[in-house]
């Protein structure tokens, strides 16, 4: 038990929380603009592979992070093209997008490193620079929505696009920007995972963190600071779970595996009343639709 409440546990929680936190920030920008991004997991994964390959090529984890950011942004662009411009179902597109990303990353990874070659280990960044990076991002997103006209516009577009349109704002353009920004942060999250704690890539390395991030966004009521806090809480749950297994072996470990989700569920129930879903979330915008 003593190991449970150690600094090490907290650090583990932070490490586990970092990628989720960044992805959640991305999802917040997406969803505030009214675009539901179920492709988040896929965008993270793409960013992870991009970051890994570039890091491996350049030997610089920072350039790797940048690459993850750019790859994520471009996946965001593709997604925006489909759901914003072509107004495809955001739900199906999102889920299919994740399937594509899992398949595509695996395919490319295996093209690059054929069977028999172990994936090379790449330069890694320590925890604190990444924590700093994440804090910068959360501050930026907070500032965006609290202090800038652009942020106000994004929320307006997600809240009542017809009003924003009537005021002369380009709903489609704003949703494009928001989706690209969201993808970029998700990709960065994935890149942080491989260029930070891990230093290597394997198939589906993100292992469902994108879905967790989506949960957090709701749990946080679409607000950046609680979302990041939630990510670290979630990480802490995982860390604690792993530590408790060693000691409390009479409790089935599946309980601990489910713990983070149960916690999110409970938090969801407690928070939900106060959380405010963007009214236009998931609805493509068509002027004067009737």
């Amino acid at each position, binding site marked *: 038990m003593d190991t449970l409440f150690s600094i090490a546990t907290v650090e583990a929680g932070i490490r586990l929380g970092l990628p989720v936190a960044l992805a959640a920030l991305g999802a917040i920008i997406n969803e505030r603009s009214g675009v539901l991004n179920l492709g988040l997991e896929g965008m993270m994964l793409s960013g992870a592979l991009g970051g890994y390959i570039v890091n491996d090529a350049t030997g610089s984890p920072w350039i790797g992070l940048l690459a993850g950011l750019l790859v994520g942004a471009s996946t965001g662009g593709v997604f925006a093209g489909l759901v914003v411009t072509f107004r495809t179902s955001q739900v199906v597109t999102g889920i299919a997008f994740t399937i594509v990303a899992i398949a595509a990353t695996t395919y490319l990874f295996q093209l690059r490193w054929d069977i028999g070659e172990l994936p090379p280990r790449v330069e890694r960044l320590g925890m604190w620079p990444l924590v700093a990076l994440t804090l910068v991002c959360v501050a930026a997103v907070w500032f965006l929505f*609290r*202090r800038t*006209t*652009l942020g106000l516009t994004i929320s307006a577009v997600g809240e*009542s696009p017809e*009003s*924003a*349109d009537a005021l002369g704002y380009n709903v489609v353009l704003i949703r494009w920007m928001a989706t690209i920004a969201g993808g970029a942060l998700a990709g960065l999250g994935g890149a942080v995972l491989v260029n930070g704690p891990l230093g290597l890539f394997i198939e589906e390395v993100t292992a469902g963190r994108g879905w967790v991030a989506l949960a957090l966004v709701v749990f946080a009521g679409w607000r950046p600071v609680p979302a990041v806090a939630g990510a670290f809480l979630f990480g802490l749950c995982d860390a604690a779970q792993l530590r408790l297994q060693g000691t409390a072996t009479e409790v089935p470990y599946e309980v601990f595996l489910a713990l983070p989700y149960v916690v999110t569920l409970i938090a969801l129930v407690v928070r939900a009343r106060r959380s405010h879903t963007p*009214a236009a979330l998931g609805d493509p915008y068509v002027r004067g639709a*009737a």
Partner: protein
Amino acid sequence: MRSVSRRFGETVALDGVDFEARPGEIHALLGANGAGKTTLMRILAGLDRPDAGTVEVFGRRIESFEPGPIRALGVALVQQHFTLVPTLTASENLVLARPEGALLPPGRTAGVRVQKLVEKFGLEVRDGVPASQLSVGERQRLEILRALDADAKILLLDEPTAVLTDVEAERLLGVARALADQGRALVVITHRLAEVEACDRVTVLREGIEAISDGSVDGYTRADLASAMIGTDTSGTITARTTRRTQAAPVCLRVRDVSLGRVSSLTLDVGEGEIVGIAGVDGNGQSELEAALSGRSAAESGEVSISGEPIAPGDPRSRRGQGLAYIPSDRYSWGLIGPMDLADNLELGRVLPIRPNRPARHKAARPSLDHWDVRTAGPHARTSSLSGGNAQKLVLARELDEHPSAVLACYPTRGLDPEAADTVATRLVAAAEAGCAVLWIGAELDELLAVSDRIEVLYDGTLFGPYLPPFDRAAIGLAMAGDAADRARTATGGEADPP
């Protein structure tokens, strides 16, 4: 605008309409429901594009119908429906409409901006709460302020007074006049003939064609306008009832100490065959009263009962079974299902466990659609394709067709042209004379005066009255302005000290 045309599927909304607005003038745009007024204005504001015809603003021909550039030319439209962002406060809505730089102004500065406008134009709005929590009147005023804030050269108001009380409406027209005098061009869509007299020029649309094109207002009598709108000659206002009931009738609708939100322990009886009018400025608890009486939300305390049996909140079918009909104030939130067809909407509240097939349902719907003169392509039409007024008629058809024993009518004539409004009033009166208890929550005092057996004034969640015929207009007006409340307060204060 030159020979502008627009069609939606079968419906021809506009058919070669010419229209002009000149600086310094208020141009009244009249028309029965579905005449095409809104469509015309939406085109002028760039929210819709004409199938044919040209639009020029200050001599510049509009090529691309996009709201942005047209706003930049100084055209501002206050739409028939609200276009505020419900989660944003008044000042945030203003900033959104006209940002000053990339950063948001700190809260105070924004507040000051609102205050300046409020003082400048005398349109009162609360700042600091989300627009969704403002009363309809407040939201309407905010919409107008927002348009004025953009310093529009051409200001288009689509039925701006529809949701306002007479006093507010008068004030608004005063503001309009002042704006015109500053050299702006104004267009005001309205169904109230009285308001036309406050304008300079008038255009009347009938089924997408001008019946009167850009005439000078003093050239026409009310009768002329009314007949131009609807072909037949009527006075254009609701016909007052000749007889009013005097002796008390057995109570049908009973409200006991109901409290909800702004409404505090409100008690009220409506007798069989009685029409009770609830007058008052919007936002004094009308929406809470509506929610509680209709059973849409449970009252915090107190009870609503109809001929003895209490109304169970959240159980509309039994409410209907108990004979309480409900005409909601916002038909699009609580009355109609846009994407479903008219027949389905007529069935709401009495859908059979096993439904007849679609042709049968459509056949069954026809009579009451015809009876209520809902202008549409037929029972199969999507309800969302109805114009404002026709949509309202559909609600009335559903609620009044099954001979309720009591009716909760909230702004039943909102957005209706005079003829339709008169029909509605007549039907409600007829219902009352057939022994039905009618509670009529209204904004237009004339209307209430014309139909009510008794008027109560709702001010700040409390009822003042009763006022009985012959009605003292002035007294009721004062009560609506809170005067009665003040006197009540001083009176209780007075009792304290001995004579």
